[in-house]
């Protein structure tokens, strides 16, 4: 355990939040940041040079061949926080060339329901009406906490932080996600505290009340609603209020569907690849409800 040195944080969108917490908790350390993705594009020599003066490498990189290059430093492998129990409807879409299709406000996020409706010629009005608790139950959007938790645990287990030090603490901050892959500040702070514990060996860090001093950087981006019917299931109040990007609001499913359809226009969306979408289940459940 070192009391000073250079800490390099190279994670995903949590990088800034983690770095800020470490800066607050480890005043004798120098905190640096780097895109995780940058390491994937570097040659082994470049990685070695970048890590040469690093004492602690906090990284979301999972490729063992790259991790090995940082062996001289204290490497702390951290997980991505992916948890979709609150937001099972978020999906990405790619065209035949693999390029991401942009959605409302040039966001990468789409509603899987809206995508399916557009692909199947469902009107915007009918699509908006599908945003109902009964639909969510039928397509398995409700009650997937255990699966989401299990998936998140697997991500922790592949790294150096303990899931059990993270997840139970999140229960008092539920919902702890802005979208399925963007955690709230509470989650980022908890993760960063666990990292600081790893660096210093001091578990009293976990009880330091610094949450109010850390801005929620990811709240600057999209905050996907937790739909009524899903939220109820987790003891929360749901809504159909989308904040897309910094400050664009859609206040109902009708507004959001209309905006999505306007972006998709006449595109042949049936050709788009939506990796997260189990098309067979949608095809079983939705046609009748959509009036097809």
């Amino acid at each position: 355990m070192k009391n000073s040195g250079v800490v390099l944080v190279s994670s995903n969108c949590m990088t800034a939040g983690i770095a800020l917490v470490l800066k607050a908790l480890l005043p004798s350390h120098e905190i640096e940041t780097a895109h995780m993705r940058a390491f994937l594009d570097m040659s082994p020599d470049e990685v070695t040079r970048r890590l040469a003066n690093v004492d602690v490498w906090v990284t979301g990189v999972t490729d063992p061949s790259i991790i090995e290059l940082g062996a001289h430093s204290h490497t702390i492998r951290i997980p991505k926080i992916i948890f979709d129990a609150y937001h099972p409807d978020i999906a990405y879409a790619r065209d035949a060339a693999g390029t991401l299709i942009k959605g409302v406000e040039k966001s990468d996020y789409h509603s899987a329901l809206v995508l399916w409706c557009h692909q199947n010629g469902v009107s915007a009005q009918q699509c908006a009406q599908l945003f109902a608790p009964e639909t969510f139950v039928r397509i398995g959007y409700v009650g997937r906490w255990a699966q989401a938790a299990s998936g998140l645990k697997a991500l922790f287990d592949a790294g150096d932080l303990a899931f059990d030090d993270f997840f139970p603490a999140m229960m008092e901050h539920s919902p702890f996600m802005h979208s399925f892959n963007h955690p709230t500040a509470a989650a980022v702070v908890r993760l960063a505290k666990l990292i600081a514990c790893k660096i210093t060996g001091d578990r009293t860090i976990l009880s330091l009340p610094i949450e109010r001093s850390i801005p929620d950087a990811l709240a600057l981006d999209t905050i996907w609603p937790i739909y009524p019917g899903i939220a109820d299931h987790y003891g929360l109040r749901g809504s159909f209020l989308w904040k897309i990007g910094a400050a664009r609001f859609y206040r109902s499913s009708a507004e959001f569907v209309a905006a999505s359809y306007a972006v998709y226009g006449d595109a042949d969306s049936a050709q788009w690849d939506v990796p997260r979408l189990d098309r067979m289940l949608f095809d079983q459940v939705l046609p009748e409800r959509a009036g097809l």
Partner: protein
Amino acid sequence: MTNPYRSQPDHCFWSRAVVAAPPGQLDPMVGSPFRITPDMKVATLGSCFAQNIARHLQRSGLNYFVPETAPDGLSSDEAAARNYGVFSARYGNVYTVRQALQLFDRAFGALQPKEDVWARGEVFVDPFRPLIEPEGFASPQHVRDAATTHLAYVRRVFSEADVLVFTLGLTEGWRSREDGVVFATAPGVAGGVFDPERHERVNFTAREVSDDLQAFCDRIAGINRDARILLTVSPVPLIATHRAEQHILSATTYSKAVLRVAAEEIAQANPHVSYFPSFEIITSAHSRGSYFEADLRSVREVGIAHVMRVFSRHFLINEDAPAGSVPPPCATVPTEADVVCDEEVIERALRASGFSS
């Protein structure tokens, strides 16, 4: 030596059954004592929280038994204002077990209260349901006639219901020194005049409440042999205590503890009586107080929804999947490889936090 806890099921352990339960998914009900089928008449009685159960029963397609219905020609708004359909009969909130017991006895002629009419300004009210008619009654005789009509419906509720859901609310009350009848409110609050010579405050003991509850259940079984009684305890705290020597929080804790003990004792002792843990769902540490409104007293809809989810799971047929069952497959499947991290989001977050990439 064998550890006797070793073979206990998960619900016997706090870490597994409470800490590990996802938000909104705490289910403290173990098993299902019986199922409510659509042909069964379900009646409700009790404190204000019981109104939530009544509303859910009305919406869930069950046979919510309301023999005391609004007269023909009354609009739905007028009917609601005059408390038709709030409970199975127009008894209003029945907060204490003693009130329920005396309601039964009044309905079946075993109790004739000496003080059966209160004045409220120019009008008159029923001391046992003083807010049932917002405008009051024109004369004492009107009050007595309405009570006679009402009590006939109460007899039907107790005689014909297949399931009676009784929500216990309070241990504190006000009663007549003359004959011991317990009023719905303190004299002088919604009618009548408080007279210390004639009225007294009462806070029932655990033994008194248990005895009253046993007597009430016995009386129901005496006229309606197959009826099931489902007891709940209201999670709503007292709005005020009449005990000046007690803090409201301590008074609430006492009241709820006594009611919970009585419910447990009577449910354990009587095969036709069961307990449903709505109190636990709303007040447990698991919900971290999130089920209460800003007044820390009113229960939020999301809490009521949780209670009703558990209720449906354990008492209704095909209403919900059994506890612990696997939900239907989800139409969207997360994969780590699929997750996109928008570079702009990363940049923006770094800039906002004072870092460069």
